[in-house]
């Protein structure tokens, strides 16, 4: 199991490179080559990802879809550099940031304090921080809530603070781990519009993990379907529906139905094995 590894990524505290670092051949911001991840050791080893190959183009919005146990979070950890693959290669050209599903804001800091800490940890001088924080909170429509603590904000507002904090890192690759999973439908709809707007305006590359098929179709340029235990790419669906899209529209619902069938097929296979 000792195939060569190549994990190329710039350090977080270095300025964003204008040219991709050497060793990145594909030119894609995210490139996985037969990346595998096994947890545990020989006897009770659990494969989480099995030879996943995936390229994400610059400025692309890719949604990763899968049932439980497809290793979605493992995959994001690999791309974010929080974990290393057991085999294969994960190449990332650019600065990544990861946004979580639930309460990942620091509860002792205000909205503005949370965003500012991201800047502070990148050693942005104090004089520049204040203006940048105000600007980022304006981008996510939170002016007037700068001094609120996370527990004083609604779920949707907390996720927008997380978004501002992620943008504060100056990353061009945004990794999102079911970021809207815990929100009510109304708020989620608005945040879909919001993330789409930010993606367009800031030229981000987004890898978005979800288990909600309609959400994936609503947002993605491409939907990638992962199998479960171990995670493996089983199908890809380009989404040609023109934007702006609505989650209730027929084209979105139709494609979502097709993908759901495929997803169920995948889940059924596990039923037969058991």
């Amino acid at each position: 199991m000792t195939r060569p590894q190549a994990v190329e990524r710039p350090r977080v505290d270095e300025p964003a490179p204008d040219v991709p670092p050497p060793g990145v051949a594909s030119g894609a911001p995210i490139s996985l080559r037969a990346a595998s991840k096994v947890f545990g050791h020989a006897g009770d080893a659990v494969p989480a990802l099995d030879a996943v190959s995936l390229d994400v183009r610059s400025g692309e919005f890719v949604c990763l879809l899968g049932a439980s146990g497809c290793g979605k979070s493992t995959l994001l950890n690999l791309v974010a550099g929080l974990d290393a693959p057991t085999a294969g290669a994960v190449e990332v050209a650019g600065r990544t940031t990861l946004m979580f599903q639930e309460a990942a804001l620091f509860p002792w800091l205000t909205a503005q304090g949370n965003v500012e800490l991201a800047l502070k940890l990148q050693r942005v001088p104090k004089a520049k921080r204040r203006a940048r924080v105000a600007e980022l909170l304006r981008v996510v429509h939170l002016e007037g809530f700068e001094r609120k603590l996370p527990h004083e904000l609604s779920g949707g507002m907390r996720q927008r603070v997380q978004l501002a904090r992620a943008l504060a890192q100056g990353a061009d690759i945004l990794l999102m781990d079911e970021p809207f999973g815990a929100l009510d439908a109304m708020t989620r709809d608005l945040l879909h519009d919001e993330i789409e707007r930010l993606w367009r305006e800031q030229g981000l590359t987004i890898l978005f993990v979800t288990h909600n098929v309609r959400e994936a179709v609503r947002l993605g340029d491409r939907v990638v379907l992962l199998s479960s235990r171990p995670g493996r790419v089983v199908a890809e669906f380009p989404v040609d529906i023109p934007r702006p899209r609505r989650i209730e529209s027929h084209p979105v619902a139709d494609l979502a139905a097709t993908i759901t069938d495929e997803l169920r097929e995948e889940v059924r296979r596990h039923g037969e094995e058991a």
Partner: protein
Amino acid sequence: MAKKPDNGSGARTQLLDRELSGLDHLETALPSGPSRASRIWAAAWPKLLAIALVLIVWQLVVWSGWKPEYVLPGPRAVWDSFVENFSTNMDAAWTTLQRGFKGFAFALVIGTIVGALVARNRVLRSAIGSLITGLQTMPSVAWFPLAILLFQLGEGAIFFVVVLGAAPSIANGLISGIDHIQPILLRAGRVLGAKRWRAFRYVILPAALPSFVAGLKQGWAFAWRSLLAGELIVLIPGQFSLGQQLDANRQLADSAGVISVMIVILIIGILVDALLFGTAERKIRRRYGLVDTAAA
């Protein structure tokens, strides 16, 4: 990098702005709490009632004639003694408090360093983790014979025992605080690029703060107890302290004097606990969103 939005998307963005802010305002309207005066009264009256009850029972016991009044004086006699000895007792309390704060400050430094190291280092933890808990349960009086042999009958012996009384609780508070940090906060810290000292300073320490302050509170209680035990055992000639005053009054068979010193000790204990640690704890719990607003 930013693409210029066309007019159509500009209008949609404006609409989105309005929708988001509408939802935000609907979701963050909180009812205001009761007024300050009524909160103070609500906190005060049960305490006043309890004090009144204690005084009544005490007076009844004295009236019952269970012990002669020169052995068990009533509230009135103790009050007179309290007023009469007030300035002496305050001098004594000042010495005792200074010792307490000195010892506690040193224990704070030691306990924090040891706690942080043990929490973050697996080998250290298995080596001395249970030892710290063991020290916490050891009665501090048990240290005095050794402390007196090491430092003779003097400030050093008292200081030594006060530090040993408080430091384990402080260390344990920090350790359990760090152990109970939600993993997602640590992950978020790593994503933001917090490493080593900066991770400790900006993520781990603030996340562990509620439990750390609980440890400080307990540490102070242990320090205060060890201190009074120390002052009773280690009598330094020519120096007023609360422990020394207790002993002096006992030797004079002045029960009212003994009880009035005890009341000073009790009041200081309550005040430090409530004003210093209680306030800090309440503020932190409120800031961290650990207070149930429906119940409070």
